[in-house]
């Protein structure tokens, strides 16, 4: 009887430990883990099973992008989001239209749908082939794709039913804008004489702003590339739309 109790306690303890480990889960095993034991459809056929290499390298890294960046830069010119009520784009000094910059450009070196996932600057020996030859996130919408259709990780797509037609790789017009300055100037302009509709995330908030002035909204403002504990790699739970309401007063 006593031995049974100890067994039960051990089982409970193990389950508890497992749940703690899951809560602390980092990139390993998530969809951003492109190794053979990763959690997504796209996997590098590398027997060593490296995880970090798809974005980082300790040597011979990118000279223009950090941290120790190991990916080729996307060459796409993107169609930006526009709206009559969105003023952020007016603050861009970008001469070729509002293009993703900074951290967001790093994300789009996979999520543009067309840049090869295994287009790396530095590997050990030969390039890493992708399982099945599926080396683009855009593979999801190719005719005969082995992946289910639906909201995929190709941010540059025309989502079926969105009104857009055809497969594309550079369409950010249906995605929340990134790489614009979110500051008091924008908040005032957006309010247009009325009550503010926006607020800056408080210091220490999971939602961060980037760039030299710490005022740029980038993909990383909402997403934590390394952790999927909140689902969809969000920086915080979006239960009750808490993430959206961090900035939007609605």
């Amino acid at each position, binding site marked *: 009887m006593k031995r049974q109790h100890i067994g039960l306690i051990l089982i409970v303890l193990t389950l508890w430990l497992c749940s703690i480990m899951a809560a602390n889960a980092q990139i*390993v095993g998530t969809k951003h883990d492109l190794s053979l034991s990763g959690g997504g459809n796209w996997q590098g056929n590398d027997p060593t099973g490296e*995880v970090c290499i798809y974005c980082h390298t300790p040597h011979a890294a*990118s000279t223009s992008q950090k941290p120790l960046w190991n990916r080729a830069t996307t060459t796409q010119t993107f169609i930006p989001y526009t709206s009559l009520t969105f003023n952020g784009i007016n603050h861009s000094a970008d001469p070729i239209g509002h293009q993703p910059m900074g951290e967001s450009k790093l994300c789009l070196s996979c999520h543009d749908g067309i840049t090869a996932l295994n287009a790396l600057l530095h590997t050990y020996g030969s390039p890493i082939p992708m399982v099945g030859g599926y080396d683009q996130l855009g593979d999801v919408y190719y005719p005969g794709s082995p992946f289910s259709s639906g909201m995929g990780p190709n941010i540059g797509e025309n989502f079926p039913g969105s009104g857009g037609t055809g497969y594309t790789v550079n369409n950010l017009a249906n995605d929340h804008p990134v790489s614009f300055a979110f500051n008091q100037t924008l908040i005032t302009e957006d309010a247009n004489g009325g009550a503010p509709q926006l607020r800056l995330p408080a210091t220490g908030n999971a939602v961060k702003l980037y760039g030299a002035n710490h005022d740029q909204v980038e993909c990383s403002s909402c997403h934590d590339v390394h952790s999927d504990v909140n689902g969809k790699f969000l920086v915080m739970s979006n239960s009750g739309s808490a993430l959206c309401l961090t900035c939007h007063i609605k």
Partner: protein
Amino acid sequence: MKSTCTLIFSLLLIAGAAFGQITGTPHDLSSVTGDSNTYHSTNQDQICIFCHTPHAASATNTPLWNRNDPANTFQVYSSPTMHAFDPNGPIPNVSGTSLMCLSCHDGVTALNSLIYNGSHGVPQMTGGNVITGSANLNDASGLTNDHPVSINYATALANGSALHATGTLPNWALKAGNRIECTSCHNVHSFGATADMQPFLNASRTGSALCLTCHIK
């Protein structure tokens, strides 16, 4: 008898490989066991001498160091998200044991530039006397595209970097003064018996275990 000797010798060789010794690795620049390497000597059959000497060694570097530190300073890595040094202070240069590695891997210093040459004289080299290609860390970009070294891990940790606590790390990770040096990742004497332990790694690349030893990602 001969076959017994051969057997024993073979076993010793296997044991040597299993224990991951320097003999025959790319760090073996000798004329005999290192002769399959790109860079090796044609007249110096000793292995250790390219880094160590039992006498007349460096007055500043240990252990019994037989090389001079590179004379130049290096362009080093920095990033807005790296917190290993005072952002308002000067960026520290490479120092300590990492300089010893760079006395070959700087792409400038001659491989045969030894403090003490021994009875064979200056080692004659074939395949080049200066490292080029991927083993030259000080390429056109300097060290700006390489993982930082000679940085204080405890400082980075204290400034909020996503790193494991110092006390939880294996003994090879942190060097004197809680510093990260080349040797935090690399074991100069052991090439690695399996591909995941190469080149000269202290832990496996499988599942990026080496990276995740320090980084919480």
